[in-house]
């Protein structure tokens, strides 16, 4: 009678419980030699060569698992948080599963619901790692009930943060509680979380709350091709460096709905947050010691000009974002579809300031900062932070040739994301920046082992540095080798000597789990984002070597 295929969002790990011991891992080392290049603003690096490296080793046997990670930054690559100088065994864990109880001690990553209340993860390329160091328990006391509890500190570079985090999460798959006629059609999952952090108040100027609590409630409903996912998070007074020490509550609401059937997918979402920066150390900044994670509402582009020039960084202090996407597969044999069919996708997102009514500081003795009510989460503020409309068409022309065409229209509010903070004075952007980007990406398969990919990108804008054109050529030969060249040309720059070619070439060898890449050339300054969390990458000119392997 029980519904079988139950979808669990934050699933208990289903790892292969073999009796044999298994060791696995991976390794990567990135080295870069830097040359000074005043034309593009590449600074002189005293060490000449900088290196990042890490290795993961994991061991599993039956219900038991353990592992370590070693990281080395001597010294960290340009653009990485300078706090990473040094090396050490930064991640170590042991765990087992016994009669439904799963225990992990040491370092671990975890996510409650969408991550709006708690998410610890690592994004190596951003230099972000807020892993927990403590104890985590997972337990399912009854069918359809999944509980998680954790407590510990969080990682910051080679040490742990001051604050202690405690959290509990419960997920309830409601199906077995509903009667036949209702539950046969859909799956209903309810979830709730409670997270609190403790940090001593040693500050003589303000009375800080030492324990700061937050709770979340979520609901997920799936029926047929339709799904609905919502979560609300509430955070109690959390004065911090981020919000300039105000005692107002923080709120977040996220609603995602989608429909999918064969050949068609539609999603729409609303995410509105206000005062939701939640760290285990109230005095920290940048990407250090975040307890929660604000999911990105805008599409995370991968093409170079779209992804690194004007990307949007989510604003934990507040934003109101709506987004929608339609994906359609034009059927094979139709006029547009051709022999193989054609994929069409349209994506739209718009992010605004939150509605925040500031209070007069002279009468605001409670330091609330602004008025807050739940209803205001559903009203966007006036200021535009980011808008993005993009279309993409993917089509296989014949057995050898396939292509993808993309158009992106961006509206970018630099004063919010400060992505151009270090920019030269003549290129400073006032007001909103609008950019049109077009990309043609064509792959041609010469034979079974060799293929060529050509990519042409163009960005046009009236502000900042003007128009860009990018060309990419990649040639993969034999199954193991590849060679690539990329040139980004800022032909539309208003300053003649800034019409620069950023030329970069690379060669690589991939064999089974091993990969070697060697690159040489100029990389322009930009912003690198993953999931809406960004870091600035300074311009550089030099040679880079990367070695990675997994076993």
């Amino acid at each position, binding site marked *: 009678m029980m519904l079988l295929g139950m979808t669990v969002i934050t699933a208990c790990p289903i790892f292969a419980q073999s009796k044999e011991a298994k060791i696995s891992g991976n390794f990567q080392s990135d080295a870069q030699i830097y040359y000074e290049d005043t034309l593009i603003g590449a600074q002189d690096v005293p060490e000449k060569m900088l290196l990042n490296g890490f290795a993961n080793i994991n061991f599993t046997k039956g219900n038991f698992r353990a592992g370590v990670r070693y990281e080395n930054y001597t010294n960290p690559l340009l653009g990485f948080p*300078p*706090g990473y*100088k*040094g090396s050490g065994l930064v991640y170590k864990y042991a765990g087992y599963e016994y009669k439904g109880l799963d225990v992990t001690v040491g370092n671990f990553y975890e996510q409650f619901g969408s991550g709006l209340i708690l998410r610890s993860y690592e994004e190596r390329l951003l230099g972000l790692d807020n892993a927990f160091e403590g104890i985590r328990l997972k337990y399912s*006391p*009854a069918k359809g009930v999944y*509980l998680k*509890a954790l407590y510990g500190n969080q990682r*910051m*570079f*080679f*040490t742990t*943060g*001051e604050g202690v985090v*405690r*959290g*509990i999460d*419960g997920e309830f798959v409601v199906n077995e509680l509903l009667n036949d006629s209702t539950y046969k059609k859909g799956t209903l999952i309810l979830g709730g979380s*409670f997270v*609190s952090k*403790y940090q001593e108040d*040693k*500050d*003589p*100027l*303000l*009375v*800080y*709350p*030492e*324990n*700061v*609590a937050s709770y979340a409630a979520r609901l997920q409903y799936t029926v047929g091709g339709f799904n609905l996912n919502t979560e609300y998070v509430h955070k*109690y*007074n959390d*004065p*911090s*460096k981020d919000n*300039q*020490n105000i*005692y107002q509550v923080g709120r977040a609401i996220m609603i995602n709905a989608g429909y999918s059937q064969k050949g068609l997918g539609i999603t729409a979402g609303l995410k509105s947050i206000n005062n939701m920066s939640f760290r285990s150390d*109230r*005095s*920290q*900044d*940048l990407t250090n010691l975040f307890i929660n994670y604000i999911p990105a509402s805008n599409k995370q582009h991968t093409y170079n000009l779209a992804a690194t020039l004007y990307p949007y960084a989510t604003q934990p202090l507040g934003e109101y974002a709506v987004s929608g996407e339609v994906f359609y597969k034009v059927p094979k044999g139709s006029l547009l579809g051709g022999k193989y069919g054609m994929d069409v996708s349209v994506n739209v997102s718009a992010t605004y300031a939150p509605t925040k009514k*500031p209070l007069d*500081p002279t009468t605001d*003795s*409670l*330091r609330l900062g602004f008025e807050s009510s739940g209803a205001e989460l559903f009203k966007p503020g006036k200021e535009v932070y980011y808008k993005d409309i993009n279309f993409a068409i993917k089509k296989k022309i014949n057995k050898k040739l396939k292509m993808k065409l993309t158009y992106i229209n961006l509206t970018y509010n630099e*004063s*919010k994301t*400060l992505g151009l903070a*270090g920019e*030269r*004075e003549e290129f*400073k952007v006032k007001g909103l920046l609008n950019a049109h980007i077009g990309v043609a990406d064509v792959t041609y398969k010469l034979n079974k082992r060799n293929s060529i990919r050509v990519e042409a990108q163009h960005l046009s804008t009236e502000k900042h540095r003007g128009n860009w054109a990018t060309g990419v050529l990649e040639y993969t030969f034999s199954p193991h080798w590849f060679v690539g060249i990329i040139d980004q040309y800022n032909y539309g720059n208003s300053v003649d000597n800034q019409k620069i070619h950023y030329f970069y070439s690379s060669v690589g060898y991939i064999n089974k789990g091993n990969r070697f890449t060697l690159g040489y050339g100029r990389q322009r300054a930009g912003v690198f984002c993953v999931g809406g969390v960004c870091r600035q990458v300074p311009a550089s000119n030099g040679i880079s070597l990367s070695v990675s392997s997994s076993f």
Partner: protein
Amino acid sequence: MLKQLYTYTLLACTSFFFVQCDIVKDPRVDIVTTPGDTNSTTILRKVLIEDYTGQACGNCPVAAIKLDDIHALYGDKVIGMAVHAGFFADTMFFGHPTYGVILENEHSTAFDDFFEVSLFGNPNGMVNRQYNEANSNNIYNHEKWAEEATEIIQEEAAVSVEISTTYNSSSRALEVTVSGESLNDLIGNYMLAVALTENNVEAPQKYYAGVLGYEKETWVDDYNHKHVLRDMIGGTWGSSVLSDVEPGATYSKTFNYTIPNNFNADNCSIVAYVYNESSKEILQVEEEHIN
């Protein structure tokens, strides 16, 4: 029945997690006694808080206000110094007139290059240049200054610093004598550095959108820059005064200096500090107005 008992016990256990929440009704602090107030004649440490800033750093006014708050709380136990250095202090990139006032100088740049503060980000600063384990450097962000200062001003000083000045306003000649003695065993080499700071310098300052109530990015031309590091008398890093001594070892140094015409001598002060040459940590600091 057992299953229900089991469920309720489980819920009761999980409710343990629900008790941790502090709601602060009144954020103000009631100060009864300021730490560091003692009746005895023990000399306690004073704190030098260096605020690394720049006129084009739109977030930096927040740190300056923090320093003001700490000063209002601790009075002369805390000595503030604004060090203008790095990208945001470079007038070439302002895109805004300087009105002839340049706050960056060779010494502020030398300190910034050595401690790599602006590389770490602005605003940021140092508290008696002590080592910050969390960052693996000497840098503290402004939210940490108050708590670090509170700890330091309760400690006994290992060396004393006294400043006396004589100033001739017509010739703008300044004579500074810094003297003191060791109050503890001092192992290692200790240097004395003497800084000239100017208070209430009127010069532009940028505010980013959203900072301290400014809706749009704004340059405020008549911003009051407080205790700006203007010059180092006797060299950026000073000179050696005490080396491997027992308590009671004295030192005294006299400097002659002419206050430049573009400094307002009425607003100038001498900040002298004794620091450990290898760790750079400041043992004791003192400030004296030149008039």
